[in-house]
């Protein structure tokens, strides 16, 4: 399953253009503690979080994650989005909560 399929199914808003949405998403990681993600997320996973800080992109890039989904209508600041463009990290947004978003993506991946 790739990011585009997930974005289409859940109606996620893609916040940066020219990113790789065809890449295979191998799983998900849910955490708002950045050092937890730094230590435990795995390559190819989609990160669901409410943190919108430039370091979120740095960590996603370091761990080679498939993308970042910001929940609850939270939007990145301009610095974060600029860094995401530079690093080619897809940033998506939803108004749903972390619980709903994670549940829906999990269901999609399991079926």
């Amino acid at each position: 399953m790739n990011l585009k399929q997930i974005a289409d199914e859940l109606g996620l808003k893609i916040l940066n253009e020219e990113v790789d949405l065809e890449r295979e998403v191998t799983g998900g990681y849910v955490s708002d503690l950045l050092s937890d993600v730094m230590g435990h997320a795995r390559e190819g996973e989609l990160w669901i979080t409410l943190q919108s800080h430039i370091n979120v992109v740095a960590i996603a890039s370091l761990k080679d994650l498939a993308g970042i989904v910001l929940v609850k209508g939270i939007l990145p600041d301009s610095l974060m989005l600029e860094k995401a463009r530079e690093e080619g990290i897809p940033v998506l947004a939803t108004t749903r909560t972390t619980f709903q978003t994670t549940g829906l993506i999990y269901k999609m991946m399991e079926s």
Partner: protein
Amino acid sequence: MNVYRADLHIHSVLSPCGDLEMSPRRIVARAVEMGLDIIAVTDHNHTGHARLTRRLGEKHGIWVVYGAEVNTREEVHCLTFFDTNQQLEDFQMQLERYLPMVPNDPHLFGDQVIVDEDEHILSEIRHSLYPGLSLGISDMTGLVHELGGLFVPAHVDRPMNGLYIQLGLFPDGLEVDAVEISRNTDPAGIRKQHSELESYRLLRNSDAHYPEHIGRAYNMMSMKAKTFSEFTLALHGKEGRMVKEK
């Protein structure tokens, strides 16, 4: 009693986010320019520039408090202050014990280098100084106090890594020596919002990452002399020593 200007939260080039210009030499030179009497270099999870900065400060009558800005397991940033070389060494050992070993990527997070007096690079710290330590805030206060240091939660009202956003409320029984608020925050205002802050002296520092930011905020500290015991009394607001609120 003397009144000293103290900027107690400054990052050197050792912090991944610290500008390459932030060598101990440059920091001290800027502190002199800004008329500061006391400074602390508080790098993320590392004390590597403390001793050199103190030595350079001594030449200009600036007292350099040893310290670091630690990141707790809950990702709350906290300032720690120490007095002696032995304390500093012991604390550095503890930091290395609790820091998760994740390689740093200088391109993504910034360089982490230790330099000498002449700004030559002596060594590079290869693991990231960014992550939270594997020690919670309460245990961290215990560790710092056991070593004879002081513990001050940093920029508690900041929307990232501040105590209130990370923990929701001030933990009951947390033993802190003072509290740092963001440099533009009004002490009276934040005390109204968080009544537990009535009991603490509030610090405002520059949190400088660039030379030109050093001294953009500082504290007026009433102390008899530039010593750690006087500094401790001032943070605690005891025996006539204090941190004046402007």
